[in-house]
């Protein structure tokens, strides 16, 4: 029987990009809003993120990317999740992402991209509305 439980989220930094200011702020805002939040730390590969997501049984993955590598990294994460039969994990992200890339990424299955200027409250509200606990 499914029981009500807290939504679990993984906030991650993938690749060589070390700009973790945004990721840490979002992780903390989500935790303060009552979610269970795991932060991967820096320099993760897509494989590492997906492995952590499965191990921690998270409902959503939020990735922060400021390096310009988003077009490589997001599709890879989505593919790896699908391969592990976890395609229902909600993937969202934020960072410096040009508008045309956002459309492409959303078509590929990234549910939402937050760009500079988004408030922590917007992120919290969106997650609350769009990341349900997965059925187990």
């Amino acid at each position, binding site marked *: 029987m499914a029981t009500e439980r807290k939504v679990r989220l993984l906030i991650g930094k993938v690749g*060589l990009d*070390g700009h973790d*200011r945004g990721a*840490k702020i979002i992780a903390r805002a989500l935790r303060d809003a009552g979610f269970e939040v795991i932060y991967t730390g*820096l320099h993760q590969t897509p494989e590492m993120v997906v492995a952590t997501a499965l191990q921690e049984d998270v409902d959503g993955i939020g990735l922060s990317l400021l390096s310009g590598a988003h077009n*490589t990294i997001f599709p890879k994460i989505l593919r790896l999740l699908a391969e592990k039969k976890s395609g229902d994990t909600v993937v969202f992200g934020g960072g*410096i992402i040009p508008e045309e890339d956002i459309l492409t990424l959303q078509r590929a299955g990234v549910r939402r991209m937050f760009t500079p*200027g988004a408030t922590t409250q917007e992120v919290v509200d969106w997650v609350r509305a769009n990341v349900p606990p997965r059925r187990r």
Partner: protein
Amino acid sequence: MKSKNGGRTSTLNSRALRDWEEGTLRPALDRKPERKKEFTTVSSLPIERLYVPEDLKAWDPGEKLGFPGEPPFTRGVHPTMYRGKLWTMRQFAGFGSAEDTNRRFHYLLEHGQTGLSVAFDLPTLMGCDSDDALAEGEVGREGVAVDTLTDMEILFQGIPLDRVSTSMTINAPAAVILAMYLAVAEKQGIPLDRLEGTVQNDILKEYIAQKEWIYPPAPSLRIISDMVAFCTDRVPKWNTISISGYHIREAGSTAAQELAFTLADGIGYVQSCLSSGLDIDAFAPRFSFFFNAHNDFFEEIAKLRAARRMWCAIMRDRFHAKSPRSWMLRMHVQTAGCSLTAQQPYNNVVRVTVQALAAVLGGTQSLHTNSLDETLALPTEDSARIALRTQQIIAEESGVANTVDPLAGSYFVETLTDRLEQDAWSYIKRIDQMGGIVAAIEQGFPQREIAEAAYVYQRQVDGGDKIVVGVNRHSEGDVLKTPTLKIGPGVEETQVARLRATREGRERGRHAQTLERLTRVARTRENLMPAILDAVRGYASVGEICDALKTVFGVYREGRVQF
């Protein structure tokens, strides 16, 4: 009553102030209260309504200011400041391939820029080759990709290295990149003692803020001391470390934290070089600093003035350096990237102007002004030109460069300068009590303080307590779009192909021998630089050299990250 400093009778004493408050101020406030209850800087320092002579009653200009070019250098490091020579306008550039960046360099030099500044891509900054698995998708994106000497030769083609000064923003693999630059100079037939430039080479702020590290702190500091020793001897005009607050601020610190952690890092480098037996007055004059110029105009000016005064005290009174050149804090400033907005991007030109003006009034030696589109992508040529023109307008039209340290003696600016200094000293004291900056980093202290400040600021912006025009105020009418620079996907393939060609074309076995020698030297206390230079000349790659050193030094892993 005689005032302490001027010897004149001051009528603007505390009684006069009370009279003003009661007779003039209060009725005005009764009629119309102020806009807010509390006024604060962007870093949340409280700011008073009015600063008056009383605020500087115990303030001694002889001790706090002195004269420009003399200790404590509050008024600047040169006696004539910008009347003698304007600051160096140094725009950071680098993207895509070495050829692309080389073309941009020629363009900037033709447009009156006076120094070069190289941005490297993330794989290079992390000591990875372009064909490393971790480099996927990142080659040439945020800067130029450099794998081997081949790339460096292309990067500086047609640029006589004895006639430019070059700043290279590189940290963990700085010794390797500098060695490549020296090897290019050798090929151009230029003696090393004629080279001028800077490597950032500031690993401590990587652990604190920017997070582009390779080795743990102890071997990283050894590599840095070796490079400092080598340059002191062979490349005497090279600035060996650019001790950087910029990234600390970008990571979300307050102005006082930026000041404190940067100077604490400086103390760390001095201690490290001293303990490897170097003479302080031989190396300290080649240390320079790199600060951020954020939005809060006076807070930034105060920070830069306080930095000079504090470094003078640190070098003269704490480390007993003898040469006044060791006491001087020379700085580069860059306007705050994190203050720019993706919304209404043309507003950024105005932000950059205000920030650049603060840097100039703070007495910087060189300046990078950000381009209006830098929150969106690397700058286009047009936006990079506007950024450079901004500096030229400040330098040549505004008149602010006509006199030295024009804000000295301002009740407000001097009070704020003192306040930033005090706050920074108390951080430095806490760091000393922890056992120095490396111990503090290992305990996560600066990292936590910065993350906390970043979070507080974000909440203030989200709650409308701090205003960002175009984002949480005046956000209507975001119609102007700006073109952005695109990096083609071909860059990665071309770069990887060139790396492979270089590997195949190099003299058989030579680079392997040089790498063996390098690891051997790494296990001793011998200076690493000659072995690195040798490996570079044999076209060993950045990744190969860093990997060789990793086998001896290990790699850094960040402890549990608190958020």
